């Protein structure tokens, strides 16, 4: 990789360069490879120098008309920005500061480097099947599973009861529930709205003193009735917000016509 890098630094001799960006796994990888050429601890690396190395490298690659993946160019743009930030006098406070950006880059390089080394150390361990070996022909262990079926007499007779119950002819009785039909509700609401010009709560149109089940049915039917009557142009409906109470009144045109 170092050879490739050195080659890239000599764009004057393009024939020798067979650099492929496939050699790097992304810009950060390339940056790390460049950083290594500074031959110092990553903590003491000169970010400014690294930025220049990277930009030179990209530049060289461009002169060679190598096709560069977008992320390398994005990194180059970002580093150019960082470079100008580091070089320019800092009268204006930009946030985050160039120093912070540089430090962030340095920290990322350190982390990548740490994991790269950790991976290498991991791979170098005495690995099972490569350096140490399990027994070649183990007899194997076997646990034969023998099912002990569990069922009680109660389970048995209950199962039989259910079979019999299931196969007996079933008689279905539909219980009657109190409902207000839509027709009923339309008649009722239409009659009650009459020529009322003031807004009146929908709930006021329900019969008084009915039980909860019938009340729900009546409310639902009356609501649909109100929609139907509004569609027919007989009532206006108003609601001030979602889930707010509904108000009805006789439709404007009709009320006016009658007055």
């Amino acid at each position, binding site marked *: 990789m170092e050879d490739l890098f050195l080659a890239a630094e000599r764009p004057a001799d393009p024939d020798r360069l067979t650099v492929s960006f496939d050699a790097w796994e992304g810009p950060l990888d390339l940056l790390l490879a460049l950083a290594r050429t500074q031959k110092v601890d990553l903590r003491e690396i000169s970010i400014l120098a690294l930025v220049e190395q990277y930009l030179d490298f990209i530049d060289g690659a461009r002169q060679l008309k190598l096709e560069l993946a977008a992320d390398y160019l994005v990194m180059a743009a970002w580093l150019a920005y960082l470079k100008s930030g580091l070089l320019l006098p800092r009268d204006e406070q930009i946030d985050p500061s160039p120093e912070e950006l540089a430090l962030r880059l340095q920290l990322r390089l350190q982390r990548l480097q740490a994991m790269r080394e950790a991976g290498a150390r991991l791979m170098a361990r005495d690995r099972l099947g490569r350096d140490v070996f399990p027994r070649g022909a183990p007899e194997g262990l076997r646990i034969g599973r023998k099912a002990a079926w569990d069922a009680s007499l109660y389970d048995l007779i209950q199962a039989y009861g259910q079979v019999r*119950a299931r196969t007996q002819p079933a008689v279905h009785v539909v219980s009657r529930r109190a409902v207000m039909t839509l027709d009923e509700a339309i008649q009722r609401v239409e009659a009650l709205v009459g020529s009322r010009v003031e807004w009146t709560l929908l709930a006021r149109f329900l019969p008084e003193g009915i039980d909860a089940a019938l009340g729900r049915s009546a409310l639902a039917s009356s609501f649909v009735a109100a929609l139907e009557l509004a569609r027919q142009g007989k009532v206006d409906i108003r609601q001030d917000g979602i889930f707010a109470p509904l108000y009805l009144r006789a439709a404007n045109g009709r009320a006016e016509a009658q007055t």
Partner: protein
Amino acid sequence: MNAEPDDLMRAIEATLFASDVPMSAADLRLHVGDGGDVPALLARLAADYAGRGINLVERGGRWHFQTAADLAHILRREKEESRRLSRAAMETLAIISYHEPVSRAEIEAIRGVQVGKGTLDVLMEAGWVRPAGRREVPGRPLTYATTPAFLTHFGLASRRDLPGIDDLRAAGLLDPVDLALESAMAGSRSDADPEADGDNPVQSVVEMDDEDA
């Protein structure tokens, strides 16, 4: 295993261990080199392992490690697992016990759903059901009946001890499904009732075909 194992002996030990076939002294030399008395070291190794759980044995000039013969039983363990019968198996068993001898077609007619072959296999494997001859009708269907082990398991002196239809009705076990459904839906018995699971008629309605055990 008192002697300090020397390097060649360790190498022989490891090679035999890792090999998937028994090896002769000549095979071993290919791995560990020629510089030692391999047969003597094999004999020493065998002596080291004598009396342990692992032995080094020679068969026809080839050596291999094996577990000590007296420990074979622990390598093959049988484990009893308590398992519940599936609903299909339970119902099938119940029908056989009340109607025996009974053919598979008859069981299906009573259950109202098909009976998978696996279901009868499970009951026979459990030792509760046996084939009970063929019925002399067209097709000569095989019939099934319960076994003495069935009576023993369910604590019955004879099949006559099974509660009759009237007993079942009195116990509420013949309640039509719809009623049982309503009371289940009413909620009171759903969670707390340990029997609710077996009782739950929704399940028997939904589960059309039997799940084999």
